[in-house]
């Protein structure tokens, strides 16, 4: 496997941290808001409060993992979480 130049790796990891991190925290908040057994108005707040912890974790992950491709893992994790969060909308869209 050809090793990418350092600046490209840094750029890729930075984008992974910024975009992948945002996708993860957005999707995780949506998912939590959907599954928390609370009134909708409360669930929104309780689900959004930990979002920045997910984001920070994703940033650390993007720079900690040895493989630059795996830095994008948060983006992959975000997909199923978003599906849970938005399943009524997703079903509507499919129908």
């Amino acid at each position, binding site marked *: 496997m050809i090793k990418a130049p*350092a600046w490209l*790796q*840094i750029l890729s*990891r930075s984008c992974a941290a910024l975009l992948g991190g*945002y996708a993860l*925290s*957005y*999707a*995780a*908040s*949506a998912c*939590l*808001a*959907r599954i928390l057994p*609370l*009134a*909708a*108005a*409360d*669930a*929104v*707040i*309780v*689900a*959004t*409060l930990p*979002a*920045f912890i997910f*984001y*920070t974790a994703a*940033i*650390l992950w993007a*720079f*900690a993992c*040895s493989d*630059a491709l795996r830095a994008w893992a948060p983006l992959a994790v975000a997909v199923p979480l978003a599906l849970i*969060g*938005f399943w009524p*909308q997703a079903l509507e869209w499919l129908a």
Partner: protein
Amino acid sequence: MKNTFTQSMAWLHTWAGLIFGWLLFAIFVTGTLAVFDKELDHWMQPEIPATEVPQADAARRAIAYLQAHEPQAGNWGISLPSERSPGLRVSTGERRHGPTVQLDPRTGEAIEVRDSVGGNFFFRFHFTLDLPRNWGIFVVGALALVMLAALVTGIVIHKKIFKEFFTFRPNKGQRSWLDFHNASAVLLLPFHLMITYTGLVIFMLIYIPAGVDALFAGDNRAYFQAQGNTRLEQPRGLARQPAALVDVAPLLAQAEARLGPIGGLNIRNPNTAAARIEIRPGLGNRIALGKGQAMVFDGVSGQLLGDVAEWRAAPLTQRVMAGLHFAQFGGYPMRWLYFVCGLVSCLMIASGLVLFCVKRGRKYASAEASVRRWYRVAEVCNVGFVSGLLLACVGLLWASRVLPVELAQRESWEVRAFFGVWLLALLHAGIRPVRRAWVEQLLLTAFLCIGLGALGGLGDAMRLGVVACALVLGVLLGLLAWRVWQAQWVPQKARAGRRMEAGA
């Protein structure tokens, strides 16, 4: 990228800290100054008398003024004098955006007050960097997130956290800078984490509207309705039917008994049968931030129509977090605590920035030209964004007193002075040797701080407090400048001494 976990975290801490530290320093400094925003407002507008007038009397005078000058307005806003803000302000138009008039609370007469951005500029800069509001909120939010990441990576790479808690080795160059950076970070780690996280929580639904998108289809109004934040319906037909306004003094007393000190009131549709009086509490009555809360009274009968809502656990949590960030509770002791903690945060960021250059100075001295050029950029930015920003802040205070009172668009000239001084400081740092740039800018800042009293504003305790605090900060900055100057000369003197000994 480095191999081990700790190494990669150290890499992230170093570079994210350097690149974003310059703006984070500006955010933390202005945030620390914003703790005393009202006091700075008061100092920057010397025409406002320092008086203690009962709120009920002030409210009556404000209403008398509005009856005489604005009887047809659809909304009257009144900001009542309080402990930190002795001025009486009236406005017309929606949500305090209309034209504002300052009154003398003792007489109810309008007074001419110079236009000034006041300490409020630091508050606004703190969360928008003076960009357009929505852009600024996102930029500052991103920076806060970097700060959070920098704190966590800092903990990760700092292995001997408890041992070094008690370690400070002064006068050891790089070692001392690292010790200071560590000590200031670890000592107030709970504060750094709290202030950064709660700062993000204030606008969390602007940053991450996922919950509203998922459960309310992105409809913010529906979300706020579900929160119970609905305004009372305005009775439409009655707004054209004239009616006398009820006396506000008993209503203020009733609201004060329920809410604590009052911040101000709004009177909607005054002098009509639809009149509504909304009385809002002062911000510091409890930890939870009570923005947007009010008791609503019928403006004709004086009957209570709507009380302040009790918050459920979840919204209360969010409001307490916002309140912890705004630091309006607990009076002056709490304000001073936040101010000192904020100063330590600023010192931590600044020492980290300096450490970056101190650590690499010797290494890069023998590096190739292109590397040295980047190192020079870091040095110049350090001076321009640390001491240059301090200079710009005190420059704004000077501008508020020195600019001619009758200057058109005076407020924007104050802001231009702030950014102008900052830009000049950056240029100055670019053309001077780095040590000299530090010393000169720190000394100038120190003199401007110490000299603040020469501009007047010694009349009352609050303004005297601003001047005295500036004096103390100025002396500290002067000492710092002296230390930087000393650090430059001591090694050479020592060398000279050794040479003499060798010669003898």
